[in-house]
C-alpha cells in the first residue's frame, strides 16, 4: 500500500516544518507550502490526498487557496486548522466541502485521528509501528 500524501499549508515555515516532520514519523508522506503559489506547485508534484490548511490572520486567502486546490483536484480532502477568531471561516470552509476543522494550537494526535477518518483508513501505512 502507498503512504497517504499530505500537503500542509501555513505562512509560518517553522510550524509547517514541525507538522511535516511529525507526519513523516507517523508514516505519512508530507510536504509543506507557505503560500498559494507554492501550495499549487507542491500539489502538482506530490498529488496529495489531503491538504491541511491553516486559517489564521487572513481567512479569505486560506479559503481561496482551498478552492484552488479543490479545483485542481476535486477528490482532494481538506482539513482546516482554525486559529483564534476563525470559527466563521471554518463554517464557510465546511460549506465549501472541508472534511474537518481542528483548533490551533494543533494536537498532533487529533490531526492523526482526523487524517485516518478523512482517508477512510484505520491506519496510515507504516504508521502502525512507527509511533504510538
Amino acid at each position, binding site marked *: 500500500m502507498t503512504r497517504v500524501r499530505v500537503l500542509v499549508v501555513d505562512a509560518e515555515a517553522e510550524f509547517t516544518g*514541525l507538522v511535516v516532520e511529525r507526519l513523516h514519523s507517523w508514516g505519512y508522506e508530507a510536504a509543506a507550502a507557505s503560500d498559494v503559489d507554492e501550495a499549487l506547485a507542491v500539489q502538482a508534484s506530490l498529488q496529495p490526498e489531503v491538504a491541511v490548511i491553516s486559517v489564521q490572520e487572513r481567512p479569505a486567502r486560506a479559503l481561496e487557496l482551498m478552492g484552488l486546490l479543490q479545483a485542481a483536484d476535486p477528490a482532494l480532502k481538506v482539513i482546516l486548522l482554525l486559529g483564534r477568531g476563525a470559527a466563521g471561516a471554518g463554517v464557510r470552509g465546511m460549506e465549501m466541502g472541508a472534511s474537518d476543522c481542528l483548533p490551533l*494550537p*494543533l*494536537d498532533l*494526535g487529533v490531526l492523526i485521528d482526523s487524517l485516518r477518518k478523512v482517508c477512510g483508513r484505520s491506519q496510515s501505512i507504516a504508521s502502525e509501528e512507527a509511533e504510538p
Partner: protein
Amino acid sequence: MKILVTVQDHNIAPRFDQTTEVLIATGEAGLLQGQVRTIILPHRSAEELSDLIVKEGIDCLVCGGIEDSFYRFFKWKKIRVYDSVIGAHAEALQLALTGRLRPGMVLPSARAGVDGGGYGRR
C-alpha cells in the same frame, strides 16, 4: 497530575517564549495515564502558550528559561514550575512523574557542551 513539557527536538526547549512544541502527559507516582499528547503551536508566543497551559488545566510546567512575569503568573495560578531544566524531555517527564525533578536540574541526558545560554529566569 497533568504535566506540560516545552520541547525542542528531543530536549526541553531552552526558552519558554520561543517554544513551538509541547508534550502534555497525565500521571501519578511515576505511572503515565493515557497517551502523551504532542501539541504544535502556530507561533512562538509566551502568551499563547500560557493560554494553552491555563486552558488545559496543567498542574506542573517543565521548561527551560522563563520570564519572571510568566513564572510569577503560573505560581499565582498554583501551577508548579520546574524551570531552567536542561536535558531530554522524556527524562524530565519521567522525573516529574516520580516527583524527583527540581528546578535548575541538568539531566544526565544533557548534551556535553550545552553552555546554558538562554536558560534561567529573566
